């Protein structure tokens, strides 16, 4: 499988789409738009998993695709939308730090991923695995950037969730990876727990706003 064959090109396209959505998430100012971008990324990830399932003839990946679609494209965005509605924060805006700085950092991180992965995998790995891994690492790094750049609890969690999308993208791209379905499901359980924690704590209004900087007041003597 190499450049020019549909199997390669479509995987590449879907992976690139997931990465593109990571950028889209970074430059949104409204939380609602961040959630939408995340939902689209989840759907693209599901499509990528299903495509790999077909290409690799690995039926297990269809399960991964179905779970990813149900949870990431539908359930989690819906839960966050409902939460925002309850808190009346549909239009909440946040800008920290500047978007220009964030995007410049994001491009730098993608460059870093390319510089790290491509030389290292020059030896044995297949071309698809190499490109897939580069994209996946970029998505992981952009997820971390989103967590650092945002102060809002929901956008931070979405950063973590999109980081996890990168992991799934890496796992499905490695041909013959054992336990893919189990690992991706387990990772999803962790993410669902994070989401549940946010929802529970926000609704019980332990914190009046979604701003996590409020938590910084609760420091022991650390």
């Amino acid at each position, binding site marked *: 499988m190499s450049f020019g064959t549909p199997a390669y090109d479509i995987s590449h396209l879907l992976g690139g789409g997931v990465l593109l959505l990571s950028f889209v998430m970074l430059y949104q100012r409204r939380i609602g738009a961040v959630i939408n971008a995340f939902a689209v990324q989840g759907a693209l990830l599901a499509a990528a998993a299903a495509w790999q399932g077909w290409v690799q003839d690995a039926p297990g990946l269809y399960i991964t695709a179905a779970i990813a679609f149900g949870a990431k494209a539908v359930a989690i965005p819906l839960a966050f939308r409902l939460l925002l509605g309850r808190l009346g924060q549909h239009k909440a805006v946040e800008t920290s730090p500047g978007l220009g700085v964030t995007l410049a950092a994001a491009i730098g991180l993608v460059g870093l991923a390319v510089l790290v992965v491509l*030389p290292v995998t020059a030896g044995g790995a297949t071309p698809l695995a190499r490109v897939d891994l580069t994209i996946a690492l970029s998505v992981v790094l952009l997820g971390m950037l989103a967590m650092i750049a945002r102060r809002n609890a929901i956008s931070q969690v979405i950063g*973590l969730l999109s980081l996890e999308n990168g992991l799934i993208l890496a796992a499905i791209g490695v041909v013959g990876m054992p336990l893919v379905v189990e690992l991706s499901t387990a990772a999803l359980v962790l993410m669902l727990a994070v989401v549940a924690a946010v929802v529970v704590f926000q609704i019980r209004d332990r914190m009046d706003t979604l701003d996590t900087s409020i938590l910084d007041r609760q420091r022991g003597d650390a």
Partner: protein
Amino acid sequence: MMPLPWILVFLPWAGALLLAALPPRGRLPAFVNIGISAGSLLVALALLGHEHGVQGWTRIDALNLPFIAVAALIGLTTAIFSAATVEAETFDGLRARAYHAAFQVFMGAQALALVSDNMGVMWVAIEIATLASVLMVGVHGTPAAVEAAWKFFILCGVGIALALFGTILLYLAAQPVVGSGDPGLSWAALRAVAEQCDPGVLSLAFVFLLVGYGTKAGLVPLHSWLPDAEAEGPLPICAVLSGLLLNAALLAILRAQSIIGANPAALAPGPFLIGFGLASLLLAAFALWRRRDARRLFAWSSIEHIGLATIAFGIGGAVASLAGIIHLLGHALVKSAVFFAVGAATQIKGSRQIADIGGLASSHPALGWGLALGIAGLAGMPPFALFVSELSLVAEGAARFPWLVLPMALGLLVAAAALIRALHALCLGAPTPDQPVRGAFALPGGTLWATAPVWLHLALAAALGFAAPPAFTALLRAGAELL
């Protein structure tokens, strides 16, 4: 019948279901919790006679057996300590259920992390242990507990995600050699083929696994969740976080290290481990001086000791690895003893500030002297295992990397001095007035529920250092050879 290693995992998990279903009235759940933990200890002891080797996703070898035994023992003593202190935590029904069930889920998950041969299963186990411990840390629901749990969740969530990326890379490196299917993630299989794997991908995998699991092991600069988690969770959690979770995470790093180390062309893991270890040791040694909260003080001391053990594994070789293993086991025993004693003291004195807990040795001699001995043990004084391991670590370090001795000795001395200062403040001098928390040690026997585990742990830590049975020493040596 289910193989023994799986019983060690599923017995606590079945117990967790039972504890979640039991009505949380009275003292029944606390005693059921003790019963399940006692059962787990019996299974762990039976495992000592189990034949070594891979069995499906699990493996029993000389490296994990001592950790399994010590973890099960600490699980039992923690359950005993918990029974006497849980009333004073004033849980409502739901929280009491969640607390007891999460404790057993955690015990099963850390056991699975220790016995798994499959790196993917190990990852899932550490993830479940994370979820259970987050639940335990945040169970009080106070703003401080919520913050501690949130910090724990986000930091360890990122850490665990990076570890998964490392696991995927590990398989990617091995895939051309081992092909598809379960063996691709088996530690034994990966180690056997590591030499033929692509060294570049292996190195990349190690970096991710080290940073990922290093977050869970509390290595500086990924440690900041640990002091908060230990200060804000219910008392017994400190003992299992410091004693079991950190060990399980470090063991995962060691498994990864031994795979990467088997390929001479890949990155040498040693310098990375020494770097993280030294950073942890030095930062913690100085941080110990500024702590006013007793629980945070000993959380920082855990960071220091995990750092020391990491240095030992970074130096490598049979002697240093043996010192590292003894250090981890000794630290688990002594630190949980100290947390039992400090926990009891905070409930008796009604405060966890060091300034409010004073003169324990004269007001509560059994508890106070136990705490004093425990702190002295953490400071590296004989007759405990930590003295033996630190001595042999420094000697081995001096022989192999002379430059390492100066920063290591500095860290050890600064930390020991800070701990001795805390010992003076907490145990000696004039006693501060008692202001017991309501419900503390209400069970018949009073503080015996804390002092008995404390002295048992101290006796075992001393035995581990100076009077271990030859068979056990041989097991530890064989474990060190595996690395």
